[in-house]
């Protein structure tokens, strides 16, 4: 299995180590690489879009040609997992904000900086479908306001959605790479227990 972490900006190395540790945890053979050029996307099974600044990642993704190449590779079957800023890029719709150009891979609408500024960032327990209790870290997090079509809600927070999936794609508004609970990668990578 080959997993790429989009390396434009954000907590890239944390994602690379977390995904590598998850592969080891489940005894899956594979490698995790950093993607900073579009050519590197060619044989990936999964691409992880990390947390960072969605405006920055969005702009540089388009300028470097990575944006179009991701869409092409998705048509060939690559799964994409967007965390925090990455979840914004997964959405069909970004509410009240034209500063980000999303990949539109999932039938979700996302609102940026929903919880407020950094002082409103928090940690809490979530209930994730198929997993159970999960300690999640939210940093200037967006929120998934709506989910439609084939999209399945996997976790909620208050009246909103914290995690969803559609086919091979996932969007989550928290940071699985900052904690050491690798169970969530079983969902991402469609692994047996």
């Amino acid at each position, binding site marked *: 299995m080959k997993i790429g972490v989009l390396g434009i*900006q954000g*907590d890239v190395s944390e994602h690379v180590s977390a995904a590598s540790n998850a592969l080891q945890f489940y005894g899956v053979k594979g490698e995790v690489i950093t993607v*900073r050029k579009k050519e590197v996307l060619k044989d990936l099974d999964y691409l992880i879009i990390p947390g960072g600044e969605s405006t920055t990642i969005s702009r540089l993704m388009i300028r470097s040609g990575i944006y179009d190449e991701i869409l092409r590779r998705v048509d060939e079957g690559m799964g994409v997992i967007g965390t925090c800023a990455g979840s914004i890029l997964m959405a069909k719709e970004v509410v009240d904000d034209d500063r980000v150009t999303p990949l539109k891979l999932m039938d979700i609408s996302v609102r940026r900086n929903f919880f407020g500024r950094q*002082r409103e960032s928090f*940690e809490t327990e979530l209930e994730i479908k198929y997993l159970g209790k999960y300690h999640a870290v939210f940093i*200037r997090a967006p929120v998934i306001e709506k989910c439609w079509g084939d999209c399945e809600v996997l976790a909620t927070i208050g009246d909103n959605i914290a995690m969803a999936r559609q086919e091979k794609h996932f969007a989550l508004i928290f940071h699985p790479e900052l904690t050491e609970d690798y169970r969530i990668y079983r969902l991402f990578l469609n692994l047996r227990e």
Partner: protein
Amino acid sequence: MPFHLDLENVRYGSELIKRGFAKMQKGGVIMDVTNAEQAQIAEDAGAVAVMALERVPADIRAAGGVARMADPLKIQEIMDAVSIPVMAKVRIGHIEEARALEALGVDMIDESEVLTPADPFFHIDKREFTVPFVCGCRNLGEAVRRIWEGAAMIRTKGEAGTGNVIEAVRHIRLVNRAIEELKYMDDEKIHELAKNYAQSYAKLLLRVKELNGFEPVVGGDEPVFGHYTLNEIIEGLYKELQEIKRLQRLPVVNFAAGGVATPADAALMMQLGADGVFVGSGIFKSPNPEEMAKAIVEAVMHYDEPETVAEVSKGLKGMYGQEISQLSERLQERGW
């Protein structure tokens, strides 16, 4: 939008949240801005955050006098203009400026030598705050002390407002080499180093003893910084040093700052191991800020591709640079 979580076990302002925020800035450029218009230029160019100021460091240097926290009205104007995080500076040791900025809602506070220090003895105990802090350093000792005090991010001090990168290079090299040096030290030696690094916390008590006409000696169990005794601080620094030895890097995000003026300067600092770059005067003191801002963002992303650095540098003119030895005051000497 204020949002109240109807959930139990919600934690704000933990070390994980504060350091996590800094990690989201990695691979990015944080730009100094003085108004809403500049903030939008920075956001449009792809900055990961902006530093809200009344004046950029080059102008602070030129103006002289006492440089304080920016007018909250100014900071608010910038917070309202952009969706990316907004940081702002407080004077070294000025707990109340920091409280005010935290209340205002800035996303990160820079306890900065660019402003005039407020406390001759201590930096802020940053663990007491919900908002994360970034602090400057010239060497590993300063970095470790700031991290122990709770800084979620470290940056080189460099020499702000000069457009001269030599001091930023000096500081990152000094930190990196000192981290490597830890590999060759056993536990006892690292404990001795922690003891050396802890001495700067004893300054106030030493001065008091001296003024009282007693021998200026501080014992390990005497409180020297808030309720912390010298021994507690030594143990704290020792733990940090052991972690740094194991990781072979700082345990928090480490940015370059202080004199970065061109795309090549930014790429150089990334090559030397910086996680990202602050650009102060380098953008809005250059003849074409929009182009300079975009070029530095691209150079940081593609720092290991010389063709890209060459391409984005074409036709760009950097700010006027100053020779360090000609300066009347070196801002990096503020703080300890």
